[in-house]
């Protein structure tokens, strides 16, 4: 793998002027589309994008409006990783060089229905960058619980009443599950820290083989937040410690951000309609879970 220092940094000043995800029909203020747009600007023209069912495919390819301004394809829902692997293999077999294949899949398409294919893709070390834009529920079908929906969340299948008191499980530990494959490069990111995300995509671009980025991407529609705060809320999530920024590289974990103090979890939660119903006890449970996680990360990853 190319050493990080050798890779010229991509930022707002020097990135390509070209837009590759344009004219799409995503909700106003969509965090997922920020992730897709920025990643494609780093990856550049010679990119094949593969997207399973999910918001980004649903809003990008409605005939005749083709919002991907480079090669892109909608894949089978459970098979985005394998279809991308097929693209990479086919292009290689045809003698193509100097191209990248990328998947943009939601949390459901990644941690749930698409997981088997993703695991196979990493196991084979197929030359694919898999980006999971995590908006913490099945948003395309109208906000249902996924394996990455956090504790307490109210969704249309976890209605936060007497019998189903919102989501009762914590997020699946996707990053470490991916890292446990001994993948060459995996990272977490948030659209609230865009330069960090750009750097990670840039690093993954230069991996020959499988790489993975789990990017936290807000959804104003599903989260009950104003459209203009999409970036801010994704930053808050990191600052209050519920989302962490880390990398797994050469068999080692690395915690990219280790704040001395976290900002208020309660403030973060109370800004969002999906958490409005949560009791003090619920919030306490979220905080305890956060602290346990950080204790472990600080002990093992620093």
């Amino acid at each position, binding site marked *: 793998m190319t050493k990080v220092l050798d890779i010229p940094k991509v930022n707002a000043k020097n990135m390509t002027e070209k837009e590759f995800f344009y004219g799409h029909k995503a909700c106003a203020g969509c965090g997922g589309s920020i992730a897709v747009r920025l990643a494609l600007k780093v990856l550049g*023209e010679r990119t094949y994008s593969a997207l399973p069912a999910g918001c980004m495919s649903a809003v990008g390819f409605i005939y005749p409006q083709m919002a991907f301004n480079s090669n892109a394809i909608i894949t089978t829902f459970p*098979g985005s990783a394998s279809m991308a692997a097929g*693209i990479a293999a086919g292009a290689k*077999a045809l003698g193509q060089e100097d191209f990248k294949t990328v998947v943009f899949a939601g949390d459901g398409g990644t941690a749930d229905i698409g997981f088997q294919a993703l695991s196979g893709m990493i196991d084979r070390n197929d030359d694919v960058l898999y980006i999971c834009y995590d908006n913490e529920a099945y948003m395309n079908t109208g906000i249902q619980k996924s394996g990455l929906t956090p504790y307490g969340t109210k969704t249309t299948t976890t209605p936060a009443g007497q019998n189903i008191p919102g989501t009762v499980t914590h997020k699946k530990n996707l990053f470490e599950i991916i890292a446990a494959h001994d993948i060459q490069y995996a990272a977490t990111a948030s659209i609230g820290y865009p330069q960090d995300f750009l750097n990670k995509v840039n690093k993954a671009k230069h991996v020959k083989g499988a790489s993975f980025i789990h990017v936290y991407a807000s959804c104003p529609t599903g989260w009950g937040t104003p459209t203009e705060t999409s970036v801010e809320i994704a930053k808050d999530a990191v600052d209050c410690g519920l989302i962490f920024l880390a990398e797994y590289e050469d068999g080692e974990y690395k915690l990219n951000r280790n704040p001395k103090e976290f900002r208020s979890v309660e403030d973060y939660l109370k800004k969002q309609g999906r958490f409005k119903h949560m009791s003090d006890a619920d919030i306490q449970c979220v905080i305890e879970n956060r602290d346990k996680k950080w204790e472990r990360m600080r002990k093992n990853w620093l």
Partner: protein
Amino acid sequence: MKNNKVFISGDEAVAQGVRLSRPHVVAAYPITPQTITVERLSEMVEAGEMDAEYMHVESEHSAISATMGASAVGARTFTASSSQGLLYMAEGLHYCSGGRWPVVMMNANRSVALPWSIYGDQRDSLSLLDSGWIQVYVEDAQEALDMIIQAYKIAEHKDVLTPMMVNLDGFILTHTYELVEIPDQEMVDHFLPAFETPNKMSFENPKNLGFSSRPDDNTEFKYQQNEAMFNAIDVIHKTDKDFADMFGRKYHGMVEEYMCEDADVVLVALGSVCGTVRVVIDKMRAEGKKVGLLKIRYMRPFPVEEVKDLAKRVKAIGVIDKDISFGYEGTVYTNVNSAISQIDKYVFKSNFVGGLGGRDITKAEIEDMYNKLYAGLENKSEETVEFFSLNVESND
């Protein structure tokens, strides 16, 4: 042509056909009785006899997804499956035909659980007749090899661009060794040119593929797909002729008739049982009975004209179905019947359902079918549907 005859199994014959067709990407998940095919292909790649990307996919769903991905950049692809594996691919089968990606697949016909059975019948592929794939059924290992090569030519034809499934009966064909002539690579290269398609992503001409359509357009895309399937009929005939001209083996396109010119009573069947039927016909013909066989080769597109033409000439038609659409009748029978209903003539019809889960179909049973057809004809009976090989008494 130099004599290149080898003694190999149906699975191995398929692998040879694939090798000669030079796919760029092979992605398949092993399942009995298809496994030998994928093993041989990996050996060929290992030995450098085949220059293909061999993908060790973790499931059938990923096998079909990967082949579609590769086809979407213009690569020639191959996959193979059977039974539960084919059903696990079902989403991808519809996806692939809708995407107009001419993936070629071998399916080893095997029964479908439950109860579990690794043995042969045709319930797997026949349950997916509506998935938009061209489906051909072969009778022996040579035909299996030849049809893999032909499949690429048919599927990739610009007027067709539709995936194709080559079906061979599990064990009876996949695991039986027989004499097979291996065509010459140069001749295959001449017969089967490189794959060209407008339906691909490229850096010269970037595209968005697999998009969604609104109700305003969806019917048109499906109309096109149906049109392509009908276009395949001419392409199938032409390919069969070109193949015969070059390799000397002719398969007669959509169907093959055996002893039907003057026949009164005819059985219709798919796949390997046709061979056994031929043997019974020879015996009964020697006894003066005017019996014949219509071997249906293609279930999709369906040989409507051929079936109608036959029905006009004969008095009774029986259909052997190694499948059952529960609550109705065999699927082949439904299709044949629908074609026969288009002509204005009384034909006595009967459906013989059997050979399920690997049950042998004997010569005596086939002779019995012909005799039942004669009896039904004599009595001017209504059509009948029966399970012909129950080992126990039934409630009927």
